[in-house]
């Protein structure tokens, strides 16, 4: 066992040593990725704001109108049901 101990320690340290040997020397250089302004492509993304603004306002109006219409429809149905029930109760 005593003779095997140095061998066991060597085997345990070997993967760590190999990993360190493969590690990069320092932080990767990113300076080469910066593109000066005068070399940018002619057309960059320009998202127009007007459709987004109009879409937002249109959604608000539509949502509110749909809700008001839904309230009106439910109220009408209930009013009919109420009138019908009152008539039935009067007959009784």
């Amino acid at each position, binding site marked *: 066992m005593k003779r095997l101990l140095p061998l066991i320690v060597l085997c345990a340290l070997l993967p760590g040593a190999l990993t360190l040997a493969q590690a990069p020397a320092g932080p990767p250089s990113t300076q080469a990725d910066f593109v000066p302004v005068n070399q940018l492509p002619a057309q960059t993304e320009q998202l127009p704001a007007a459709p*987004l603004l109009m*879409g937002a306002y249109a959604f608000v109006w539509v*949502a509110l109108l749909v809700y008001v219409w839904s309230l009106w429809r439910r*109220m009408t149905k*209930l*009013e009919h*049901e*109420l009138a019908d*029930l009152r008539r039935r109760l009067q007959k009784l």
Partner: protein
Amino acid sequence: MARVFLPLVLVAMVLFAAAPLVVANAPPEQTMGLVQKIFYYHVPSAMLMFVSAFVCGIASAVFLFRRSAAADRVALAAGELVVLFGAIVLVTGPLWARKAWGVWWEWDARLTSSLLLWMIFLAYLLVRRFGGPGSEKLAGAMALFGMANVPFVYVSVNYWRTLHPKTSVVMTLAPGMRAAFWFCVAAFAALYVLLLTLRKRLEDRQAEVEQLYLAAED
């Protein structure tokens, strides 16, 4: 009721119809330009979403602890309005974000917590609709939980790193923008009171119908 109701309808409609004109006259923002004008509908909707969550929570508490059926009807009306105004916030926000941030959505604190708040009240409506007899009490408890979330949603932009503007934006608006903003808040608030009144009236009618059914059975 009619004496109060008709003027309320007129005020709400006039204010809301005039809001686009007021917004058009507000000065454009220096950095974001035209798309910043979504702010005048987005923020009042968010404010009313929070107010409605409080109304729903408080009314639910009154229903749970005092067994008030009228409070339960107010809670249901307010719960629907949380979902309505929440949907407006969650649609107008990304439309603004696409231009301002370059993305439709970010899983940051404010946006995520707002979505969760909206989903809590959506679940409230589903429980009320499909939960069967006795589901009002469970829904009431959910509304209390939803109400407790509102302060967290509000302060999320101040305590976490988010893309969303902080709460101090409203207090530091330029004079031209401030007038347009508060006009829109007043318009939305009038509209909210009107919708809450209408929706509560609908629930009152529903309660009358149920009473008449019971009377007919007897």
